[in-house]
Each structure stands twice: as C-alpha cells, then as structure tokens.
C-alpha cells in the first residue's frame, strides 16, 4: 500500500473536521474523493502532504503512513515529504515568472544548478503533462500568458519536475472549461502509470471517468470506499446511494 490512513481525527481549534478515517490507496492507482461541500474531502487531502500544518490551530490524531512511514512522527522532514507528495490546486497558480522558471523552480530549490539538467527536466515534465508541443516556443515567456487549461497543466508539470511519488489534486478542473477539463482527465489517467494519484472532485462523472476507487465523505466521516464501479452502481450505504443519485449535495 502506498498510503495507509488509520483512525485519523483532524481538528481546527475546537471543530472536528475529520472523524476516525481509515483508508488505503494502492500504488499506481487513482483514488477519487467525492462528497458535498464542507464534507472534509479537501481537508483530508491536505493531511496527506501536511499542507494542513499551515492552518493555525489545526491538529490531528491517528496515523498517515506513506510507504509504511508515519508522516506525523517527530523526525519526518516535511520538505522532503512535500517533494514526494505533490499537490495541484483548485485554481491554477503558476508563479509570475516564465514557463521555464516555473517548472525549474522545484528542482532549483532542491539544489539542481546545472543548466542542461534543468533543461532536460523542464522538457520531460512538460511532455509528461502533455503541454510541451503547445509551449515549446514560449518557454521564456510569462506563464501568466497561457490559457487557464494550459496553466493547470503547467502546474501539473511543475509538480512532476520534483519527481514525486504521489500527486494530490484538489478539484483540479473546477476552474476550467469542458475541453480543458477533458484534456486534464486524459492526462490524469496517463499519469497513473508512474504516480499514485488522489483527486478531490465535485464532479461525480469525473470521478467515474478517471478513478479506480472512490471514497465518499460526508460531514467529516468516510462513509464508504470501494471500487469506483461498485460505488456508482451498487453502493452498500444508503447515504452513498442518495448522494450518487443526486438526492442531496
């Protein structure tokens, strides 16, 4: 198992945002988190690379193991953890620098100085993110001049450039048009070969299209987790069925 979560509680101050979450994610698979707004799915995603550390007053109980190692143990290097567990955000957030510098940012902060090595990483990452052909003549133009969909693929390439093992995606297509969304979904399924992917989505069709397994969250509880087909066609829990069939959410 790539990711193992055991009895995870998470609090913002007095508010308990997650309750006793148990979940496992296999290597080279795509796990989708679905559920209504405020159900804790994005919060849970952030506990997997400790981005929740940035929120004042947040704390957790329980374990999150990546390759068997508890990432909340005292001596874990958060910087190395975040390199291994990359994150793509809801809104494309390229830095206000060139396309090249955006991708090279991660490798540079992790100590890569050689120009040829950086060039190679940039090209490889852009190719993996299916963006190279579109931007190869604009590598030294501002990343902010790209379209929204291109910017999001750039952000994916930027994550891939630090050679992560896991890629977390927090509603990566919610700010994009349908065509850009389609391209990103295609990309996600391709990336599965090399990475383990966890995606939060508001869009149930999207979960159905891209994921191997799906987890349904409600009010900070993990209600049901299973094979995506099973969750969508023969869910065990009536709450899951109600959500899937659109009775609420």
């Amino acid at each position, binding site marked *: 198992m790539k990711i193992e979560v055991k009895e995870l509680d998470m609090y913002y101050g007095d508010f308990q945002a997650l309750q006793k979450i148990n979940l496992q994610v296999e290597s080279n698979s795509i796990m989708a988190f679905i559920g209504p707004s405020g159900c804790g799915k994005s919060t849970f995603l952030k506990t997997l*690379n400790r*981005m929740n550390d*940035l929120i004042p007053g947040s704390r957790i109980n329980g374990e999150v193991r990546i390759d068997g190692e508890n990432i909340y143990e005292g001596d874990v290097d958060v*910087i*190395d*953890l*975040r*390199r291994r567990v*990359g*994150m793509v*955000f809801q*809104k494309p*957030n*390229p*830095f*206000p*620098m060139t396309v090249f510098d955006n991708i090279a*940012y*991660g490798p540079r*902060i*992790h100590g890569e100085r050689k120009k040829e090595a950086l060039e190679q990483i940039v090209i490889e990452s852009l190719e993996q993110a299916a963006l190279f052909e579109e931007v190869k003549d604009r590598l030294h133009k501002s990343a902010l001049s790209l379209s929204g969909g291109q910017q999001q693929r750039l*952000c994916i390439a*930027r*994550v891939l450039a*630090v050679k992560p093992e896991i890629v977390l995606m927090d509603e990566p297509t919610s700010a994009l048009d349908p065509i850009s969304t389609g391209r990103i979904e295609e990309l996600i399924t391709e990336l599965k070969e090399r990475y383990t992917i966890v995606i939060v989505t508001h869009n149930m069709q999207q979960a159905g299209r891209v994921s191997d397994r799906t987890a349904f969250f409600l009010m900070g509880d993990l209600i049901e987790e299973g094979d995506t087909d099973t969750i969508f066609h023969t869910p065990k829990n009536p709450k899951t069925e109600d959500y899937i069939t659109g009775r609420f959410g």
Partner: protein
Amino acid sequence: MSNAKKMRRNQRIGFAFLYAAATLTIVVILTIVLYIFIKGAPYISWEFLTSAPEGNGTEGGIFPMIVNTVLLVGLTLLFVTPVGIGAAIYMTEYAKQGFWVKLIRQATENLSAIPSIIFGLFGFIFFGKVLGLGWSLLNGALTAAIVVLPLIVRTAEEAILSVPQIYREGSLALGASRWQTIRKVVLPAATPGILSGVVLSIGRVVGETAALLFTLGSADRMATSVMDSARSLSLHVYILAHDGIGFDQVYATSTVLIVVVLILNLSAVFLTRKRRGQ
C-alpha cells in the same frame, strides 16, 4: 418644484462644486510649478549644473549640492531599505498576528505623523552629540532613514500582502521552505510595489529640510567622506532663501528640485501600474 427637478438641481450643484474643487487643485499646483519654472529656468545652464557655488551661493552653480543629494539618498537607502523591508516581511510573513505586530504597526504609523523637525532635533542630539557624528552625511542619512522608515514599511507591507496566497501555497507544496518561498516567489512578485515605496522615499529625502538642517549640516562643498558636513539641494534652497541672498539661484535650484521630484513620482506611478499589470 417637483421632486425630480429638485434632484436634478442638487446634482448639478454637487457636480459644479466637485468640478470647481478639482480645477482649483490643478490651478494651485500649476501656478506654483510654473511660477518657479519661469523664474528659475533662465538661470539653468550646463555651467550652473556642473560648477561649484561662489560667494556663499549667490553666484556659481550647484554641482556639489547635486552630488551631496545623491550621496545622501544612497546612504539613506542603504540604511532604511534592509530594515524597512525586513520589518515588513517579518510582520506579514513570520510574526503571529497579535499584540506585538499591532504595536509595531501602530508605532510606525505614529512615526509617520511626527513633524520632521523633531527627527532633526533627535538626530542633532542623539547621532550628533551622543554618538559624536556631528554635522555629517552619516548623521543626515541616519536621520533621513528614520523619517522615511514608516513609508518604506507600509508600502512594502502592502506590496507583500497583495501577493496572492496561492503562490505561497504552490511553493510550499513543492517542498520549498518558508524562507525560499519568500525570497524566490513572494519578494519578486512584490518588487514593483516595494520599489514604488522606495522611489517615493527618495522623493521625500530629496525634499527634506527640517530633519537635515541640524544633522546633515550646511557646508556647500562636495562631501568627500561620510563624516563631512554636506548641503543638499533642498537645504541650499532653504539657506539661500533664509539668508535672503541670490534669489535667482534659489529659483533655479528649486526648478531642478521640482523636476527631480516630478520624475521620481512619475516613476512611482509607473511602478504601481506595472504591479497591477496594466
């Protein structure tokens, strides 16, 4: 009178007042600038800009004052930018938002409301007497640094706060440390805003007199060390006007000053626009 008519009449009166106020503002500024220009411009020549004053400044040029002003500005920025920007970074990125940050912010706000003659007296006594710097470029620069510190801190703070949070998150999620994030993402994105504060500060230092009179001194020679007394352009205007001698020189120097400050303010506007991406 019907209600609609009344509204229209009130509106017309309101607009007329606003129009008059705006016009008056422009007329006042233009009158001052043009008056100085017309009086001063005929005396400005290459000679005037590049030669030393003679007869206590009643004749000759202003070259030493130009150099002194540049030196003063450079030395002031050397002191104030690291401290000001450092304080702004600390307050926005590191400090827990609470009592201390509020206190520092309040202190800088208050500092900016103090008349600059008070800073002049402080510099005269503390830097000049206690630390023994006397009337010198160093004393003037330290005092000027205190005068513009609030401006630098405030503009830098605003510039840093206007950098979108998602840039920071993106950087941290790639495994960057907070310091790397600040240095490589936040500060570059905030640079135009920070620079516009620096440019405004330069304008403030160039135009300052009260804080410098007792600190920078009034020697009308070019300073050759930081311990030399050195008259800046503004002080030159002040001293000549005060002594009632060489009014042609006063207008000519003032014209130079106005042009310099105008250029500085326009570049601040340009930088602010650039920040907004216009």
